[in-house]
């Protein structure tokens, strides 16, 4: 590389380093330091607390279970939806796709609000139970528990799971299915042995999106989870509100970052393994 190349490289990387690298560095730095009236002390105490406190670990466990369940259920619903759109005649595919992904953009906070009004005391489900006479007074069964968090996550993240699945289905050549059928495979067999393996990177990406989006969410658990719906994201968020402990918040944020990177790496490996198995 010539001097000029190196110079343009430095100029090009500078904004990314400044606006992406520096904040991530600040996160790391804050997690191992604390400042008291200008005097900075370095300590691993915050990271140790984030990783060893039984209370935080218990919430992390619950959060991971909710997020994994969100990923599985979202994919289980999004996959047949994407297959339905994909198997429409070419003429209707764009409109079916639009119907599928439009909710992605219909405001995150509004969807939480509508789920709350659906699950709440005066909500749709309670009205239904009251009118059918199954209960005689409104029940809090639907709101402020882990189930309501899971249900809201699924409603929020189905479209995010459906899009990557559809995009990977779109790349499966239509005549592969026809070839499979000609060779005597049933439609179900052709889907299972030809289409789904080819679409597996999209399915893995779908699960990853749903998992990561649910992992850091702190508004949903607060609005529909109530006091019993503590998640890791809420704990992190609370360090910057009432608890006002930036260093601990940063250390807990690092835990989320590590889980995310592990999920990204794991899905990369899963995707590669699935594709490699297909090559044989």
């Amino acid at each position: 590389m010539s001097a000029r190349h190196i110079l343009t490289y430095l100029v090009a990387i500078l904004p990314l380093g400044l606006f992406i690298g520096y904040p991530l560095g600040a996160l790391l730095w804050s997690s191992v330091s604390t400042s008291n009236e200008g005097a900075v002390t370095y300590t691993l105490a915050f990271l140790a607390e984030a990783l060893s406190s039984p209370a935080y670990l218990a919430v992390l466990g619950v959060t991971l279970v909710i997020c994994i369940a969100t990923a599985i259920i979202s994919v289980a619903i999004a996959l047949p939806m994407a297959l339905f759109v994909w198997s429409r005649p070419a003429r209707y595919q764009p409109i079916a796709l639009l119907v599928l992904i439009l909710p992605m953009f219909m405001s995150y906070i509004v969807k939480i609000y509508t789920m709350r009004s659906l699950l709440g005391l005066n909500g749709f489900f309670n009205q239904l139970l009251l009118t059918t006479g199954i209960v005689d007074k409104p029940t809090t069964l639907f709101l402020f528990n882990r189930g309501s968090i899971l249900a809201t996550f699924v409603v929020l993240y189905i479209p995010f799971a459906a899009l990557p699945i559809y995009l990977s289905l779109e790349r499966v050549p239509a005549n592969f299915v026809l070839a499979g059928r000609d060779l005597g495979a049933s439609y179900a067999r052709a889907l299972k042995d030809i289409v789904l393996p080819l679409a597996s990177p999209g399915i893995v990406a779908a699960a990853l999106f749903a998992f990561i989006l649910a992992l850091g969410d702190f508004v949903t658990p607060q609005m529909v989870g109530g006091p019993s719906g503590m998640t890791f994201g809420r704990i992190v968020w609370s360090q910057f509100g009432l608890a006002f402990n930036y260093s601990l918040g940063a250390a807990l944020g690092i835990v989320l970052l590590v889980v995310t990177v592990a999920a990204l790496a794991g899905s990369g490996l899963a995707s590669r393994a699935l594709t490699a198995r297909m090559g044989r």
Partner: protein
Amino acid sequence: MSASRMNVAFGAVFTGAVMLLYLPILTVALYAFFPVERGSIDLSAPTLGYFADLAGNVSVLEALANSGLAALLSSLLSLVVATLYAAYLREKSGPFKVAFEALIYAPFFLPPIVVGLSLLLASASSGIPRGVATIVLGHSLFTLAVVYRIISVRLANLPPSLVQASADLGASRLQTIRFVTIPHLMSAYVAAGLLAALLSFDETLITALVAGDTTTLPLRLWAMMRVGFSPSINALVVVVVGICLVLSLAAFATLSRETRPA
């Protein structure tokens, strides 16, 4: 199972999920146009009164102005930055390009809380106060990945022969950019800009961490939800969903017109 039976099953899941995704919003929207007394809705007397209340609500108007400003500035910023990186990285390959793109895509793939937290701590350690500027920065970082992706794919599709032909016909490099490259990228700019504005307008989690005392429409709505039910929330929901719908339909129309063969 036969093909048609499987399609019926897929169609049933599709229909059920679509109802689950759309009906709650439609119901809330309906409530915005009719008076609500003790939880029951009076369908005989449609009213726009809740919208009139909103128009007189200073904090909602201020939040709307902030959201609009952040969407406009952050989408313009990410269009400019994404263009520069797409042009710079176009001819590059190998670990060099991978490193750049990893940084560009990182804020999109990390949970918003991690991105927001990092920006909050960066603003605390650098002494830059939180406000509209940090919101614009946060939104630009988050939308840059999407905008960069759309523009770089479109740039890669520009046949080199067009640029060569332009040069052969005596055009300067600037003229080639002006008359060949930019027209080729134009619809990608429109779609990416609309998508970026939409993502910014809807962004809640990063914003909550970097906004400081400034408020945006999603934050305002969140605060109103915590206080409790009021019919004007439903009216605000209609406004927010309406804006999102217009932006996303416009982006979708631009993108689908583009993919249709000429």
